[in-house]
C-alpha cells in the first residue's frame, strides 16, 4: 500500500452519472503492482459534507502508460467532486487496497457478471484473463442501454452479453434471466454489482456447483483494516471487506443461509 498523489490525465463523461478518469502518479513514480478486484481510496477535498475517502474499484491498469482507470458513479457529494476533476488536477489516493479475484491457472469456461457501475473491476479482470490466453464471457446488466458502460473495451477481451430492464440493449430483464445461463456451462463465475444481483448470481452458481467469487461494496472508513467498520459476516465470523475482501468466495459468505 502507498499513499500517492496522482494527476488527472483525462476525464470522460460516459453518461449522466458516470465518468471515466485516467490518472497517473504525479511524480512519475512507477505504479505498484495492482490486481483485478483491488481498489483505491480517494481523498475528496473542498466538500463540506464529505469527510472520508471514497473507495473506487480499479477499472484498468495500462502499464505502458503508467495509468490507472477509475470508473466513478456520481451518487453523492464526494463522488460528484471526483467526477468534476479536470485534466491536470491532483488527487491523493491510497493504492492498491484489498485482495483480488482468483486468476485461474487452467483454461476453462469463465463468466464475469456485472451490474451498473459494478462492471468496473470486471474489465481489468477480463483483460488479465485475456493476457493469460483465457477466453471469458461477460454478462452485463443495467437499467437501459446507456447504463452498460465500456462495451467496446469489454469486447476486446471476450464475448459480451447484455440485459437491460427496458429491453433497449440485449435481452430484456435481469442478468440472471439471460438465455446464455440456460444453454452454456461455466466452470467459474465472477460477479460485482448491486447486492440483490450478486445474491441471485451466487444462488445460480451454488445450485449448479459452479465456483463463484463476488466483490462486495460495503461502506468503509479507512480501507486498510484499521477501523473495522466494513465487516462482512462470513463462515469465519465478521471480517473486514477491505482487507480480507472485497472479493469473497460465495461459500464463505452467509448470503444463501
Amino acid at each position: 500500500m502507498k499513499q500517492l498523489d496522482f494527476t488527472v490525465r483525462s476525464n470522460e463523461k460516459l453518461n449522466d452519472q458516470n465518468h471515466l478518469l485516467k490518472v497517473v502518479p504525479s511524480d512519475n513514480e512507477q505504479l505498484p503492482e495492482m490486481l483485478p478486484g483491488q481498489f483505491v481510496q480517494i481523498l475528496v477535498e473542498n466538500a463540506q459534507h464529505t469527510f472520508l475517502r471514497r473507495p473506487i474499484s480499479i477499472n484498468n491498469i495500462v502499464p505502458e502508460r503508467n495509468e490507472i482507470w477509475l470508473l466513478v458513479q456520481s451518487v453523492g457529494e464526494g463522488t460528484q467532486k471526483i467526477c468534476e476533476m479536470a485534466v491536470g488536477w491532483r488527487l491523493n489516493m491510497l493504492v492498491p487496497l484489498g485482495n483480488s479475484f482468483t486468476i485461474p491457472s487452467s483454461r476453462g469456461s469463465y463468466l464475469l457478471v456485472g451490474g451498473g457501475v459494478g462492471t468496473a473491476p470486471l474489465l481489468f479482470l477480463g483483460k488479465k484473463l485475456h493476457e493469460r490466453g483465457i477466453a471469458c464471457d461477460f454478462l452485463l446488466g443495467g437499467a437501459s442501454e446507456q447504463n452498460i458502460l465500456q462495451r467496446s473495451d469489454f469486447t476486446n477481451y471476450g464475448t459480451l452479453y447484455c440485459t437491460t430492464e427496458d429491453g433497449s440493449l440485449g435481452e430484456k430483464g435481469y442478468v440472471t434471466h439471460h438465455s446464455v445461463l440456460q444453454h452454456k456451462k461455466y466452470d467459474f463465475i465472477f460477479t460485482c454489482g448491486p447486492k440483490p444481483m450478486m445474491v441471485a448470481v451466487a444462488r445460480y452458481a451454488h445450485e449448479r456447483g459452479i465456483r463463484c467469487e463476488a466483490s462486495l461494496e460495503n461502506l468503509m472508513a479507512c480501507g486498510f483494516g484499521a477501523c473495522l467498520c466494513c465487516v462482512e459476516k462470513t463462515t469465519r465470523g465478521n471480517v473486514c471487506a477491505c482487507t480480507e475482501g472485497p472479493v469473497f468466495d460465495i461459500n464463505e459468505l452467509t448470503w444463501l443461509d
Partner: protein
Amino acid sequence: MARLEVKIGSMQLRNPVMTASGTFGYGTEYTDFMDLGRLGGIFVKGTTLEPRQGNDYPRMAETPSGMLNAVGLQNKGVDYFVEHLYPLIKDYDTHMIVNVSGSTVEDYVACTEKLVGLEKIPAIELNISCPNVKEGGMAFGTSCASAAQVTRAVRNVYPGTLIVKLSPNVTDITEIARSVEAEGADSVSLVNTFLGMAIDAESRRPKLSTVTGGLSGPCIKPIALRMVWQVFHAVKIPVIGMGGICNWEDAIEFILAGATAIQVGTYNFIDPSASVKIVEGIEEYLLRHNIASVTDLVGAMEMG
C-alpha cells in the same frame, strides 16, 4: 529531540503524539504509510477477556466533519493478543499501550492480569467509555462510584502506568476524572466518542445497526477541547487529550488547554501518516516560538 519529550506515569515519551485506540489497529496496519518509531506511543485496539464479534453491519455512518461508529469492541480476546499479536508488535520502537475493556469489574481485572507480565507493554488504558456495547463499557464511566470501583480493582493488580479513558457523555467530566485520580490512576485520556445517531430519510431506518453509535472526528473538537481544559484544572495527574485532532495546530490547542500528550484518532483513516506530520508540525512550532520544551506549553493558554 529533548524539546518534544513528555512523561506520562513511568513512560518517557519521545514526543506527545500518540494514536488512539480503535483507529490504529495494532500499528501493523500503518507500517506501509509511516515509520511507527516517530510516534510517542500507540494505543492498540480495545481488548477484552473473551473474543468479541462486535455489532452487525452497518457499523459506520459519515457525518459532516466526522463519522459515527458502532464497531462494538470486535477483537479476538486477550489470550489471542498475548499469543499472536504481542510477538508481532513488541519490537516496535515506540510505547505500545493496550486499551482494556470489559462488561464487569472482574472482566477488567482478569484481562489486565494477563497483560501484567508483558515487558513491552508499559501501560494500559482502561476503557470505561465505549458507547457501543450493551453491558459495561460506558456504563462504568458515567458514574463516579463505578468509575472509581473499576479503577481501584485494576490498580490493585496493575503495577504499570494506568491511564483511564473518560467518556464525554456525562454531566460533569471533572467529577469522574477526580474520582479515578483518587483511586490511583496515573493519567486520564479524554475524550472517547459522543453518543449520536443518524437516520436514512428515504428508508426511514437508522443508519447504524445499533441505532446509536459514537461520534468522532473534527466535529467534536471544540467540545473535547473544552473538556480537556476543565479536567486539566480539576486534577494533578497528566491529561492525554483527543477529539478530532487533524493537524499540528489542533494538537497545540489541546496542549495549551492542558494536555500533556495527545492522541490522533479518526483522522488516521483520512491521512494514515497524519500523526507523523503532527510531530513535525509541533517541533517546527516550538522552534519558531523558541520554546525549550513542549511541557512549557501544557495548560499555557493565555487569558486577557
